[in-house]
């Protein structure tokens, strides 16, 4: 099942690349550098999704104390950190030619950096505590608290004056972009979501095998 998911993710990523580089037109204002959007936006979406899953799984763990919920939270946080790092890096690379700077301490960028550091701390906390039950409990609390930053990240562009543009897709009302660009973006969103599901499924299986080996 996981292998099938992996192939499906690889295939959809290939289709996403064709859509992003072959089908979607060159953007008039920014030129071809705008094609970074087909990477930056899906990785940001997957980061939101990953930390949303951490929130739900952490609440489920605190209520039911099932190790399976903790494993899902752990796996999703790990994958979420990777995708958040990629979002920041791709955004920074896109920012240099369009904004003229690699980084600026505006509300969107700063809140994403805080999110990244909080979930890095989550992973460090797991590594620091030897007792698995205690590590799971502490991390569940941190996972819930850190997830509160996700709405702050998303709405920061509305609440403060930022250099970062407001959302074009994840907002009320119709998307404000040409259909060909929107189609390429949606295909890439689906592809990266599949990749996230594949990574989490694989990581959860490994975590279960690790805990069985230690038992």
């Amino acid at each position, binding site marked *: 099942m996981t292998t099938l998911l992996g192939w499906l993710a690889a295939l959809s990523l290939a289709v996403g690349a064709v859509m992003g580089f072959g089908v979607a037109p060159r953007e008039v204002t*920014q030129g071809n550098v705008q094609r970074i959007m087909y990477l930056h936006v899906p990785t940001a979406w997957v980061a939101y999704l990953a930390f949303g899953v951490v929130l739900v799984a952490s609440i489920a763990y605190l209520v039911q104390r099932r190790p399976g919920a903790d494993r899902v939270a752990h796996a999703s946080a790990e994958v979420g950190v990777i995708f958040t790092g990629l979002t920041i890096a791709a955004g920074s*690379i896109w920012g*240099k030619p369009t904004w003229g700077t690699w980084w600026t301490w505006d509300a969107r960028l700063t809140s994403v950096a805080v999110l990244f550091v909080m979930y890095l701390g989550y992973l460090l906390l797991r590594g620091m505590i030897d007792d698995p039950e205690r590590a799971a409990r502490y991390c569940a609390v941190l996972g819930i608290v850190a997830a509160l930053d996700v709405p702050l990240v998303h709405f920061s562009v509305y609440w403060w004056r930022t250099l970062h543009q407001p959302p074009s897709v994840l907002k009320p009302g119709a998307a404000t972009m040409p259909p060909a660009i929107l189609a390429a973006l949606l295909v890439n969103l689906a592809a990266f979501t599949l990749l996230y599901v594949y990574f989490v499924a*694989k990581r959860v299986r490994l975590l279960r*095998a690790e805990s069985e080996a230690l038992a």
Partner: protein
Amino acid sequence: MADHWNFVAAAYGLAVLVLGGYWRHLRKKERELMTAGAQRSRQPSSSGHPRPGPAARHPLQ
């Protein structure tokens, strides 16, 4: 505006490196766990001493 293909290549190249690296890390961990599991199942007893063959055992064992 200039196309800045080098920036596009850098962003996608970095993504391939990071995601590919994570995938390789998971594969390596999976192989290690499988090897450790196979070694454990090959171990004759928990004490590390081989179990005596049926002929060498006491009849009441």
